[in-house]
């Protein structure tokens, strides 16, 4: 046990030493990892924002409005309502009369509500059913059933918008993943080259270690730690830069009243934890894989 601990301590010590001795090239590794992670951050923010947008839109648009003809009979109404209730995925069905619709408009228009005055006697708004769905996917079936029923004037629902949005979000996600994958590969290459320099400089030492019976783990350990440290520093650097950079961007966009964007953009605080976890995981991952790759050749003594 104590022997293991001594070996472990040696490995850690050598890892830190290696990082310090190699600090010149380390700057290159750290900045390449940081650069990758920062681009990754931008992609990530984009993806998260779009996810948020999709979720929000889905929540908002999971209803169907069925506008009724003015001359609809009570029998037709009952038939329509029964048909709707018989369908799958219905959360609630609400009957909204002309008058209620007008009231709602008035509330929404608030100060401009005077424009609507006088409409009570000859209300142009139709009676309607507002259907809440469990999911927008159920909309199509319901719509198909009711569309040509007597008394139905028009149906409003947002399936197409949602579909387009989902498609768009998927493209962004796939594109983002491809870009991320390529960048990760590039930085593994860069860091493995950096570590290769340390490994080459210590080739003799490694050879001697092998002959005296050092285990592979003991030989690899310091280099992996060196790589992980580079990755960790790169990750911390890019977390700070992305978080504050994005925070600044978010704030200035908000201040300038491009409120349309702030609706879409995700809040900086909401991503800090995810960002940190992802960056640290990828940064240290790149570091350790990079160093393992660079060592492969040297270990077959």
């Amino acid at each position, binding site marked *: 046990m104590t*022997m293991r601990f001594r070996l472990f301590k*040696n490995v850690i010590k050598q890892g830190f030493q290696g990082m310090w001795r190699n600090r010149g090239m380390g700057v290159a590794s750290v900045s390449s990892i940081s650069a990758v992670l920062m681009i990754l951050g931008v992609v990530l923010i984009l993806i998260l924002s779009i996810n948020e947008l999709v979720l929000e839109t889905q929540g908002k648009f999971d209803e169907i409005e069925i506008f009724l003809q003015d001359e609809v009979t009570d029998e037709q109404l009952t038939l329509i309502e029964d048909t709707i209730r018989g369908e799958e995925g219905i959360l609630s069905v609400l009957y909204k009369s002309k008058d209620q619709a007008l009231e709602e408009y008035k509330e929404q228009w608030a100060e401009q509500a005077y424009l609507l005055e006088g409409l009570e006697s000859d209300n142009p708004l139709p009676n309607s059913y507002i259907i809440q769905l469990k999911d927008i996917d159920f909309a199509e079936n319901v719509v198909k059933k009711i569309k040509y029923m007597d008394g139905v004037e028009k149906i409003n629902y947002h399936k197409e918008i949602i579909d387009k949005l989902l498609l768009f979000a998927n493209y962004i996600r796939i594109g983002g993943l491809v870009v991320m994958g390529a960048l990760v590969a590039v930085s593994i290459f860069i860091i493995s080259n950096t570590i290769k320099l340390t490994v080459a400089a210590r080739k003799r030492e490694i*050879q001697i270690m092998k002959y005296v019976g050092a*285990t592979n783990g003991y030989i690899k350990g310091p280099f992996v730690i060196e790589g992980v440290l580079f990755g960790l520093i790169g990750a911390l650097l890019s977390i700070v830069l992305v978080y504050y950079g994005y925070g600044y961007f978010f704030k200035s966009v908000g201040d300038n009243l491009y409120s349309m964007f702030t609706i879409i953009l995700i809040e900086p605080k909401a991503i800090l934890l995810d960002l940190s976890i992802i960056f640290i995981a990828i940064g240290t991952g790149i570091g350790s894989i990079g160093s393992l790759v660079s060592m492969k050749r040297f270990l077959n003594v």
Partner: protein
Amino acid sequence: MIKFVNVSKEYPNGVEALSNINLEIKKGEFVFLVGASGAGKSTLIKLLLKEEEATTGSIYLNDIDITRVRNRRIPRIRRNIGVVFQDFRLLHNKTVYENIAFAMEIIGTRPKEIRRRVPMVLSMVDLSRKASHFPDQLSGGEHQRVAIARAIVNNPPVLIADEPTGNLDPDTAWEIMKVLSDINAGGTTILMATHAKDIVNMMKKRVIVIEDGKMIRDDEKGGYDHEIQTI
């Protein structure tokens, strides 16, 4: 201690470096491994160190068939063997003391034990006064003595020396042979590959001659054969 049974080694490029080697070295023996360059001496040593795998046959070290040992266990095998090379292979950024201590550190020896053992080994190779010197401040013979000290510091039962005197002048070479003899007298089995004719002739130890991958001679207290000399 060491036993080769029907060992052959063919390299991937088709060269047969060793063919059907059978030999046994007992504990405490001092054995010269003699032969021209490319005869197969280095391959034999590499097989013992598990740097290369035998194509066929078995190699026993302490009754363990090392040809069947898995890669993960190789370091354990190597801890039974000290190695000395022609080119010394010291670390130039470490002092003599540190070079030797290094071999103990990497297998996790207690610091107290290292502080006790290193000076002991240094005095065995007569380098106590140079403990804090760096390799660049030492002569060739001193280099090799440091390398020997490093090879035996972990008390391996076997010491392999691959042309240990190859880079040294005759006087210094004898100095090294004296150190190796002393170590052998302490019970360590020694296998030394060499070209040095007069050393082999003078030492009167067991000589194994390899030629074209075959063992052609195995003499107790032999000499460097005339036949080999002309090659």
